């Protein structure tokens, strides 16, 4: 027995040191290769000033570190938002770390946020996977004097300082119903293919869409089903197939998520039903260019996620500098986007969504 354990005492020790050194190596080279450094080094973080009271004092811009946390990494929508955020960071001369979990899952996001709070970052700009599960973590950060701004997908009010809405939920819902109405030329069956069943923004938009459909001039449209693709390409693809099989005379699929809209358009194309079933919703130009050209998804809307990331960084910067506290009525300047005021429900509105179609899609690149 003695010989046994002595044997694996040495070997295990050696392997573990190797592992940690290896991970070290894995962490550092990513910095040069990748454009946005998802795993930035923490050594060079100078001793960030521990802000005692919630309102941060004036700080030298150079040493502010903001963490931009998307729902999950790899999603082109969030990558574009990060580009905007880095643009704002350059203008403000601060550092924005783009850190995300690999799956759109609340537990992983909480563990990530806990380690960012532990690293005493100066501000958190979060797109939440779960509005309620993140409330305790948000409160924890705020108790540590770290301002919490949510963008794209909110944490419940008690868990955040301020939320940046890409557009009013009602506005986003209305533009998608309008597009569906146009594509179905007034009447027919429509269905919704959402992201995860727990995503707060999705459920809010769907709620508004159902209300808008009651309005007189949309009586012709009949919402037959809502399915969930979990922001996974294959699941969304299968759900789209399911919709087309279950409802043979379905006319329009609305997918208010970049992953869902691309998968649905591809499903329509693969089934050879372009023109019979039309796809609309929220998508990015690069991703949808092929389907706009093929006619599977003639129109779709979105706001520029880059602007959303840009605005989120400016907002959190002003919070960190103490210019604003997130109370309704606060005003601040957001660089190229002009200035914004915090509305009375504690949110900031980016602006109305833009509709992309065949003729304007080529002058966008994100």
């Amino acid at each position, binding site marked *: 027995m003695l010989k046994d354990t002595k044997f694996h005492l040495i070997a295990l020790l050696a392997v573990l040191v190797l592992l940690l050194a290896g991970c070290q190596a*894995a962490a550092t080279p*990513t910095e040069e*290769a*990748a454009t946005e450094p*998802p*795993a930035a080094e923490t050594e060079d973080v100078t001793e960030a000033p521990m802000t005692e009271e919630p309102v941060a004092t004036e700080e030298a811009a150079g040493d502010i570190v903001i963490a931009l946390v998307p729902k*999950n*990494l*790899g*999603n*082109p929508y969030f990558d574009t938002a990060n580009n905007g955020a880095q643009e704002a960071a350059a203008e403000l001369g601060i550092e924005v770390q783009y850190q*995300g979990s*690999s*799956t759109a899952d609340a537990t992983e996001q909480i563990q990530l946020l806990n380690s960012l709070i532990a690293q005493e970052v100066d501000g958190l700009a979060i797109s939440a996977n779960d509005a309620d599960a993140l409330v305790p973590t948000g409160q924890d950060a705020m108790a540590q004097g770290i301002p919490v701004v949510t963008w794209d997908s909110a944490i419940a009010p008690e868990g955040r300082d301020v939320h940046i809405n890409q557009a009013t939920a009602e506005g986003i819902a209305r533009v998608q119903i309008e597009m569906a109405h146009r594509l179905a030329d007034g009447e027919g069956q429509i269905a919704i293919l959402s992201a995860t069943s727990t995503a707060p923004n999705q459920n809010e938009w769907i709620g508004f869409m159902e209300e808008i459909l009651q309005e007189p001039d949309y009586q012709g449209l009949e919402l037959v*089903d809502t*399915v*969930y693709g979990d922001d*996974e*390409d*294959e699941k969304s*693809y*299968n759900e789209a*197939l*399911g919709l087309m*099989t*279950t409802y*043979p005379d379905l006319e329009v699929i609305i997918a208010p998520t970049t992953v869902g809209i*691309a*998968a649905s358009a*591809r499903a329509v194309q*693969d089934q050879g039903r372009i023109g019979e079933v039309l796809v609309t919703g929220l998508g990015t130009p*690069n*991703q949808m*260019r*092929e389907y706009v050209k093929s006619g599977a998804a003639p129109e779709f809307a979105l706001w520029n996620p880059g602007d959303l990331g840009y605005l989120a960084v400016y907002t959190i910067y002003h919070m960190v500098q103490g210019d604003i506290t997130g109370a309704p009525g606060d005003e601040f300047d957001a660089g190229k986007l002009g200035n914004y005021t915090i509305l009375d429900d504690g949110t900031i509105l980016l602006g109305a969504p833009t509709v992309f179609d065949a003729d304007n899609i080529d002058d966008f690149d994100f």
Partner: protein
Amino acid sequence: MVIGKERTATSLGLMSILVRFREVGILFFTVLLIIVVSILSPVFLTAHNFRDILLNISILVIVGLAQMMVIITRGIDLSVGSMIGLVAMMVAFTVVAFPGMNPLFALLLGIALGAALGSLNGAIIAWGKVPPIIATLGTLSIYRGLVFLYSRGDWINSFEMPMGFRQLSKGTPLVIPNLILFAAAVAILVFLFLRYTQTGRDIYAVGSNPQAATVAGIRVDQVIFIVYVISGILCGMAGVLWASRFESAQTNTALGFELQTVAGPVVGGVNIFGGSGTVIGVVLGSFLLGTINNALTIVKISPFWQLAVQGLLILLAVIVDSAILRRLQTATKQGNR
């Protein structure tokens, strides 16, 4: 006062027929289900819908066959989902970097990568004598972590993939989509391998009675090593087809897929205690699972019930399986006293 009762093979026949033709039971259950669902909603019984079902289960059949061979040797491979995810990502990266690459070469690349991953499992289990559940539980999280480390979190999206690669799974040269043809080809190959090669027969012998197999001169360790390499190969192939069919490679591709690859064979009559299992069983088991999931969507039962139904089905198959086995054993024990 004769002790050893006269027990000829015939009177035990009924039991062995039941075991050999268990696949008939599954076929009967599937047909019954199809009839019921078609009555509920005529949309179900269309060639188009069955094409979708077959498309959906093609990858499940390929990996289910790999899992069957592992289960026959009394093992289990929980790392299949992660192997599919890793190979899908690596091949997607390569295909995007070399758009001109012939898709079949991408398939070969995937198979080679899968073989390497499978051989690591094989080495740990066959040479390192680590129990399969622990070894593949470990490689499940290692390979999944490597997917993230490899792509640094990035996804490969459909618009980045060359058309040729996307057509690999979708092209329909012979009316039937390639994906279904690949699955059929793998099924035939595995059938021939298990029935007509020495290693194939040795797999059954090792699973049925490992000690006797050693005495009979079979190199048990080598057979077990090969089985995990084959599992890697089929997962590599599945990874490429997965990336081609869904035109994407994400860090969570095929996450949690391993459960279905065990459910299919178990439902299809593969004996969880090892030693027996047929290709037809895996195909029918997977088809039954695919039909049920498809039926649940069409009959508009909420998608949230699908997982519960799958769980119930595996439980049922296992209870029936062991009941038959136990009744057979007591029957022979009685016979030989």
